[in-house]
């Protein structure tokens, strides 16, 4: 994340889960501390932090841990429904996933613009489908970076099915992976 030296996308994915855990820890004294990470990511913010005092306390702790210093109570009470959506505002998981896929895609796409990669078909970017060497490498890398409870076997099966589906674009697949499961 240092200036002009972009981070390793896998490190950024790992950092995203570090921040999600920091959000969970910032739910000071609530039952969120006992939730597994996937349950917490999808939990309704207002059910975990129902009062204004709880939300303010969360903001102080979360800002201290992450540096997202423009967080407002309205972000928690109105704008974002889940903790995953809240974190994605400051740290969209889509981005390091897309950068990681881009880095392992066919050379012709790696040399192009990000917008072109975003619009590309999975079958173009990763010939061979879910059984191909390139995509197998992608899944291994993602498995090493994701929190295990957010990268379940069922989720992997679903993602692989999307990879094999005709007509799936990178812009369809990446949000699906970033949706956790």
């Amino acid at each position: 994340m240092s200036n002009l030296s972009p981070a390793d996308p896998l490190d950024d994915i790992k950092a995203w889960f570090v921040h999600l855990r920091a959000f969970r820890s910032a739910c000071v004294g609530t039952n969120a501390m006992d939730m597994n990470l996937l349950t917490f990511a999808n939990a309704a913010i207002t059910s975990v932090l129902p009062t204004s005092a709880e939300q303010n306390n969360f903001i102080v702790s979360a800002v201290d841990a992450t540096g997202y210093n423009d967080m407002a109570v309205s972000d928690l009470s109105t704008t974002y429904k889940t903790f995953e959506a809240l974190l994605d505002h400051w740290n969209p998981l889509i981005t390091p996933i897309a950068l990681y896929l881009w880095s392992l895609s066919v050379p012709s796409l790696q040399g192009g613009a990000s917008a072109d990669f975003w619009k590309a078909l999975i079958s173009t970017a990763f010939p061979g489908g879910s059984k191909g060497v390139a995509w197998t490498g992608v899944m291994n890398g993602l498995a090493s970076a994701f929190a295990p409870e957010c990268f379940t076997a069922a989720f992997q099966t679903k993602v692989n099915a999307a990879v094999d589906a005709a007509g799936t674009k990178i812009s369809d697949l990446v949000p699906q992976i970033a949706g956790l499961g």
Partner: protein
Amino acid sequence: MNLNPLGKSFKTVITLALIGAPIHLAVGQDQLVSAKTYVQYPSLTPVTAVALNIGQFGTATYSAVETAVHDSNWSCASPDFFKVAVVDKNLKITRTLEIRAINLPDRDKNGRPLTQCDGSGHPAVIDLILGSQISTSDQIQVFMYVDKAQTKQLFASDGKLSFTATSFPSFTATPQAAPGESLNNGAKRDVGQLSVAFADQNLFGNSSVNIYAKSTDLFSTDAEDAKSAFAVTGGFQRGLFSRWYSTYHLDETIQGNQTASNLSAVTSLGFNTLPPWHWTDGALNNAFIYAPLPFEPTIAAQYTHRINQLVTKKSPLLSEDDFTLNPAVSWSNISFPFVCKLFNHQKKTDAAKSKPAPGTPPPVCLGTELDLGLWYLPLDLTTSQNQRVDGFGDISILVPLSDFSFASTALTYVTKGDPAKFQVRIKYADTVNAANNYARTKQWTFGIEALK
């Protein structure tokens, strides 16, 4: 496996950098710029900003920054490369707004605040902190440029952004006619009134303490108008601990009627926080009791000095000086999971079907809420010449209507619809009314209320 591929793709990206034409991709612009007001902690100073979302791969702003970062003269932390303007419906600029500062709400790997964009999603948001007055009716367009001269545009929003609230000073003056208004001498007559309200939530922009001022006034064409009033408040507030939400405020209000025949000075001091709570997990998160949230303590102190008093039939003479200290605690979201096991109702059946995920709150079959506090009035002596202390409190017993689902055939009215969204509240309150000379009332109330 290539874990750091960007060095490879950079070479190509650099050749594409700094294309002068604006980039427009088919992504909803409402997601790329947003109006934002937030409070900085611990200074508690409010900020009005336009948030530019640049971190999401595939968007126009991401592509713009991805290319611009390779120009050593470009900086996303400099206001020179941005413009925020009020535009009309034809996107013609009617006023350019001052960008007072730029906030990059993210940190680098070493935990230091970011001072530059990296072009691969960090920071994902740029806050353009505004220094110019704007109104809620203004339509705002945001521009990002390659150069400081702002000749080559990288991005332009759709000009449909607006604020619903801002932290800038507000002033309203509303004239009104008031027929048959009551006067202090008991008579009635038609009068004209001017309602005035002023508020500046942040008198000094870069202060480490939030200093504010506000005034709410009603001036009348008749000096005897019983409703004439003014109240001018100035004060400051700040967080006490930087890593724990704990705010205090001190303010002074001068209030009275427009002739100052009724005039008093009120000094207020307040503090509120939340106690650490996770340590209670074993004691307050079990099969008997479930209380995941801490109680909320507050302390408010108020000193009133009455300079002039207008004594009428309706407003008796009050003591020249009053001091009140009002500590209070409020504790909600307490339930008793064991109650669900005592009764064979729907929730128990549902719970048996599948094991809930860890951390899932237990079903609420019986809940309670508490409020406790006291008024300490050291200048107000009782008949036995003791300082006056009045305690107060209330307790509510909460029973969800879903508890009655077993009797749905007999109680169709109360259990129809979604009974989980309604609850019965049985409340006993022993309260004192500070506005009515601390008169004490005790009452039971029963009701059915909707849950959010």
